[in-house]
């Protein structure tokens, strides 16, 4: 069950875990998003309390670099409803100078944050004391040139732009364009295009709101720009379709260029078919030739040139298919799992229940189930593959479906863009694993 990689078999080892140890999870600490930056130097997490945490890598370890409150809870007076401060998505901008920029969004508002380091401070002002008080001009007898002196590293996060009031519905995705000037934000019914410099205007590029809300049967679930073609983006829906749009065709991209949809398997049809076909995440491969979608039970890889069906399908937890009614009753069937590619697009990863996560090696046609748990958290401890027993005799070390803990779900995972380092978020803990070879 080991995934072979360059230089032999890959073995995943525990590296670090962040977060509270006890089981009493504070609502605000629930991790809601995880994202590496383009170099992998920084790892950002967002939580339900609206906080962003950035961890830089130092000797293969990630430590807190900065923590800041990105969003505050708000109250929508018009609807008398609270707007959660939960961070739904974080996306890093490609680095252009010494500072780092990221976009962070809650349900309604996107913010651009600048994260910069300060390790020097000015000293020796003529008109000001060290503490900032102004000197009496009459007391100044000589002039000096202020100098910059070293200081302890301070990381500052400052909001540079606030993109607000453009979304009636809850934002589920943001995606930075490869042109580094624009980005899109998607809510349940609309997708807007922004310029990073302009906050008082956005262009609506997709609108699937029906004239009569009675007729609403489908919502947008995720959207992403193509990593290389700045005119292309995709969005997925609750009915299991993915639409690829070309912004050069029209200002309003309601008409798709391509529609990706797999015909339903009639032998599997049930009242839950639509719900489990709803796509919770869509991600382009790094090379831009494929895209991956996650629905409730599977991960599918699509060739952008073939709309009729995916080229690869991986079952994440097929043993849940017979439990769909229970999962509907306790709402687990609506859990939105994310998925991610590794750096060279050869392996994909997604989460599951019981703090399990799954990796699928596309080339080797092998897959593995691993677990993020405190019990397996000794330094450099190799993760043992896990197996779920769907029925019949349970072998030793297997877990039966009925013993799975459906409260322990891994919704967010991220893979370092170059190395075999992964970040896996359980409810309120962030686990970092790396390949032993590292």
């Amino acid at each position, binding site marked *: 069950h080991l995934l072979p990689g360059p230089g032999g078999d890959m073995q995943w080892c525990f590296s670090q875990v962040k977060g509270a140890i006890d089981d009493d999870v504070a609502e605000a600490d629930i991790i809601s998003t995880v994202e590496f930056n383009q170099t992998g130097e920084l790892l950002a997490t967002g939580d339900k309390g609206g906080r962003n945490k950035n961890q830089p890598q130092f000797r293969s370890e990630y430590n807190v670099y900065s923590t800041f409150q990105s969003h505050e809870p708000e109250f929508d007076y*018009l*609807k*008398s*409803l*609270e*707007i*959660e401060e939960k961070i739904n998505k974080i996306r890093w901008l490609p680095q252009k100078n010494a500072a780092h920029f990221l976009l962070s969004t809650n*349900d309604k508002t996107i913010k651009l944050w600048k994260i910069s380091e300060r390790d020097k401070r000015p000293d020796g002002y003529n008109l000001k004391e060290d503490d900032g008080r102004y000197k009496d001009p009459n007391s100044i007898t000589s002039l000096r040139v202020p100098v910059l002196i070293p200081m302890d590293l301070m990381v500052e996060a400052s909001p540079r732009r606030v993109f607000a009031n453009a979304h*009636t*519905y*809850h934002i589920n995705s943001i995606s930075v364009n490869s042109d580094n000037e624009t980005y899109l934000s998607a809510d*349940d*019914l609309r997708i807007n295009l922004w310029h990073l410099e302009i906050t008082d205007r956005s262009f609506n590029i997709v609108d699937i709101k029906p004239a009569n*809300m*009675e*007729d*609403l*049967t*489908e*919502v947008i*679930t995720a959207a992403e720009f193509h990593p290389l073609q700045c005119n292309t983006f995709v969005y997925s829906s*609750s009915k299991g379709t993915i639409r690829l749009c070309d912004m050069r065709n029209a200002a309003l991209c309601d008409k798709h260029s391509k529609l990706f949809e797999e015909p339903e398997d*009639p*032998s*599997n*049809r*049930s*009242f*839950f078919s*639509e*719900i489990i076909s*709803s796509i919770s995440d869509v991600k382009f491969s790094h090379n831009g030739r494929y895209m991956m979608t996650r629905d409730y039970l599977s991960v599918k890889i699509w060739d952008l040139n073939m709309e009729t069906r995916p080229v690869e399908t991986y079952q994440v937890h097929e043993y849940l*298919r*017979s*439990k*769909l*009614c*229970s*999962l*509907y*009753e*306790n*709402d*687990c069937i*609506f859990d939105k799992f994310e998925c991610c590619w590794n750096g060279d697009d050869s392996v994909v990863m997604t989460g599951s229940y019981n703090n399990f996560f799954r990796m699928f090696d596309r080339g080797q046609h092998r897959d593995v189930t691993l677990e993020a748990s405190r019990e397996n958290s000794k330094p450099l401890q190799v993760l043992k593959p896990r197996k779920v027993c769907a*029925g019949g005799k349970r072998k030793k070390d297997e877990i039966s479906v*009925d*013993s*799975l*803990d*459906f*409260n*322990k779900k891994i919704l967010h995972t991220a893979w370092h863009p170059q190395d075999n380092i992964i970040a896996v978020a359980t409810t309120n803990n962030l686990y970092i694993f790396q390949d032993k070879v590292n």
Partner: protein
Amino acid sequence: MGPTLWCTDVAAQRPRGNMFPKGTKRKFSDSGEEAGSNGDQGQAASTSVAAPRTLTSSYSLQRQSLLDMSLIKLQLCHMLVEPNLCRSVLIANTVRQIQEEMTQDGTWQIMTQALAAAQCPSDRLVATEVLCRQTDPATAAQAGQSPKPFSVVGLEEGYHSEEVVMEGEVETEVTMSTLSPVSQQMPSASYLAGPFGMGPCWEEEDEDGDGEDEDDDEEDSEECVSEGEEGDRDHLRADSRTGEQVFGTFEIKHPVPPADPALEELFSDVDPSYYDLDTVLTGMQSSPKMGPYDLLESLSSHGPTTLSSSSTCRSDLNELDHIMEIIVGS
């Protein structure tokens, strides 16, 4: 633990003959057999081989339970935070699917006729915990409209008489449930939940920035509010602000039918085994692995946090417990 509506053992274990009002049993069996031989739907196909009457009845019962559960879900998403539109849409689509299938195999018509003929006692929970207001027959008749597909229709401020109207040839109205005396205590549940959390009035305000939603509401609203409910209306308006934001509801027209013990039987004994609901409704046929125990119970015996105890569930369950207490108490 989940709502007690769910717990029972499966069809094969006990006769289902008393589940349906007298006089309609045979009709249902026929239509049930028809549905069984239809075969193009996975679950029907899988049951057509075995004793058609028993299994099909069980399937219908479980389908009804799924319908009830879906309606409860749509209603119970009255939180301070806006409900999840995607989830609501998916649940509403599920309800529509069930309704379509029930309409096709004639079950819907039978059920509506039974309900129309029976009286829903004002203090009983019938079928679902969906609430509706009593309307007097005059205003109910007044509001008669052409049947529409089971869908969400705008809920306007102050309007709290609900009706479910069906598509096509089914002209009768369905009374899904009533719990009117209790509704005072549960202001947020006194409207049938609009799943999408946004009233057209609110959207217009967002988009156009003008405040003429009141007039728009009045044009669309059903004229089903009886005089006696003026006081209630204000109470509702104040308490059910989430109801106001609800752009759609499942409207239930309630013609105050007389009580019928058969009707009570129809809806009171809704508790299929959880496991079998899973297998039947997910179109898979496999031998029961857990016997008569329902899935939730067996899971909860394994550990503290399993299928049954998600935190989202808990608040819903508390509300359901509250509802059940009230029913049992009265």
